[in-house]
């Protein structure tokens, strides 16, 4: 087997608030991402998706703190590197990031091209401005953006343009892994489609080698990603191929998430709309046992007491629940 572009083993991180409270927002997350693969991460608001995105880059600054785990980028373990080393050699270069608030991600008083120069010079100080301009102009046009955008300030761009510009800027150095945090949530449907198309192009043209796409809209991932992980309260509760996760979720939370979608993507079945009752737990004091137990229809005292183990079935499906696959399917079919 080839080396994965990104491999994460048992990563845990926490926020330390101003009042010295710990918020355990990412708990023991493992994942593996092959070349050419895209991985979706879905979950409700506040379940730790953005924190996971930040944690995956191996560069931490307060209030976020690293606790344990390994991050291996194309065979190289970056968890042991000094923060400055990670920033200089990995960020923007091997792992690129698109923040959740991509609309505000660009410095309002800087021309796009000047920011690109700074990004490239951070990793490749010898490249001349002329070369950078040529690279950027060519890349922008390949991705369907006008090269004129380079001479503009972000305030002169519309929301959708800003979003696509940030995507093009983030991937300017052809990173091995792109981590996109809700890159399409704030956009109208047309712009969303353009953004999705852009990601496909990036992958097809080899401008990125693999991708992690984070969203709270599970069905959206069906068209974009190969695999999907569902996250709940800082943990991965289920993972499988996009197809399996959208049409055949087994974990009660994934199931609930699929049923609570307001506008089903075309091609994904019609849903009866049922919200998951309750709210996610407070991550300052995560409940013992299964973190979903308080909201789970199937929860028993046992669930609340002991941590559920990760169970496997099929070719590569995992879920974190005490019940067996058969028991869960039985329960779901009773609905």
């Amino acid at each position, binding site marked *: 087997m080839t080396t994965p572009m990104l491999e994460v083993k048992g990563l845990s991180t926490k926020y330390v608030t101003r009042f010295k409270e710990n918020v355990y927002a990412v708990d023991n997350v493992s994942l593996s991402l092959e070349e050419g693969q895209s991985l979706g991460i879905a979950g409700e608001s506040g379940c730790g998706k953005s924190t996971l995105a930040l944690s995956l880059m191996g560069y931490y600054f307060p209030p976020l703190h690293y606790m344990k785990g390994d991050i291996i980028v194309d065979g190289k373990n970056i968890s042991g590197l000094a923060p400055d080393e990670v*920033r200089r050699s990995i960020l923007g270069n091997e792992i690129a990031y698109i923040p959740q608030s991509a609309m505000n*991600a660009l410095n*309002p008083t800087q021309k796009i091209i000047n920011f690109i120069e700074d990004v490239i010079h951070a990793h490749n100080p010898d490249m001349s401005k002329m070369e950078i301009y040529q690279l950027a102009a060519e890349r922008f046009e390949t991705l369907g953006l006008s090269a004129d955008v380079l001479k503009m300030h972000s305030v002169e761009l519309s929301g959708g343009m800003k979003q696509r510009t940030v995507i093009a800027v983030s991937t300017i150095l052809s990173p091995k892994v792109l981590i996109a945090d809700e890159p399409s949530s704030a956009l109208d449907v047309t712009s969303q489609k353009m953004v999705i198309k852009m990601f496909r192009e990036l992958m097809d043209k080899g401008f990125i080698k693999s991708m992690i796409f984070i969203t709270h809209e599970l069905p959206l991932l069906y068209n974009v990603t190969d695999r999907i992980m569902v996250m709940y309260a800082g943990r991965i509760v289920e993972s499988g191929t996009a197809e399996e996760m959208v049409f055949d979720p087994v974990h009660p939370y994934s199931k609930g998430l699929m049923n609570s979608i307001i506008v089903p993507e075309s091609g994904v079945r019609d849903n009866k709309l049922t919200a998951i009752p309750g709210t996610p737990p407070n991550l300052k004091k995560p409940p013992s046992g299964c973190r979903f137990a308080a909201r789970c229809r199937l929860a028993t005292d046992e669930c609340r007491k002991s941590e559920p183990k990760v169970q496997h079935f099929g070719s590569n499906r995992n879920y974190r629940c005490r019940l067996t696959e058969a028991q869960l399917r039985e329960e779901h079919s009773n609905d």
Partner: protein
Amino acid sequence: MKGYRKYFGKKIIWLIITFIAAVLLNFILPRLLPGDPVAVITARTAQGVSEASAVKQIYEDYASKFGINKPMHVQFFSYCKNALKGDFGLSFSQYPRPVSDIIHDAIWWTICLQFPAIVIGWFIGNFLGVLAAYIRKGFDKILMPIFLFFSSIPAFGMAIILLVIFGIHFKIAPTSGGYGFDLIPSFSFKFIGSVISHYHLPFWSIVLISIGAQAVGMRSMSIYELNADYVKYSRFMGICDRKIVGYVFRNAMLPQITGLALSVGTMVGGALVSEIVFSYPGLGTVIYQAVTMSDYPLLSATTLIITIMVLIVSFGIDIIYAFIDPRIKAAQFD
């Protein structure tokens, strides 16, 4: 360019309105002061003259010379006409010296003192402010109270503190004047050396005040900017801290520039008071003398000159601002 034209158009209209208001106020206010300065001059000239009609004759002579026997509006128009020619009439207190001559002697002292002091104070203040925001910890804990102290004492307070400490206690700097009282202005080393040593205290008192005021504002602006999304994004794109602090400095400085345009008047006012404390031969001291001697031609001319300088400077700042903040251009297009 259309966006800019609209912006500049608006700014110029405001400049003209403020200018007219300033000229009017400058003319009227000193004339509302109590006391009759012509009577004072008459008394001085007429010393020893005991005959009442002769004194009255002298008084009327002066009154027509100064033009104060004409109606207000006539006075105003001839004032404007003459002012355009640079003629502000004759000083009452230093009669028969022309006002323009007094101003001409004083204005360069003020410009050479205040312009560098305000600019340097502004830059150092902003630089320390962004540094305090970026480093935080001990650096900030020590600097912040100092900035707050500097920004909250009035200009003359700072001038007096420096005067007492360095001028009187340590005796390392002269306490008054722009140069040694026994010297005649010339291009000799002795004179220039004396000017420089007299320059220090007023200069630093203005610099320190501006540092304090700027640093406090800049620090909070920078803290705000450091939490902005673009800072986080730049970090995750691998850009080094030095560059990012540069972005933050620039963006946090923009509101400080508008702030400067608004506060340059106050700053000049404070600096003029520092001049008085040090009896510096600039416009501040001239104004002070003009006030104490009810010399209203001199007073209205000096205040007018200062108002015009402040208006021009803040207009200039507004224009520069438009070119360095692209948001202005974008906003005017909406």
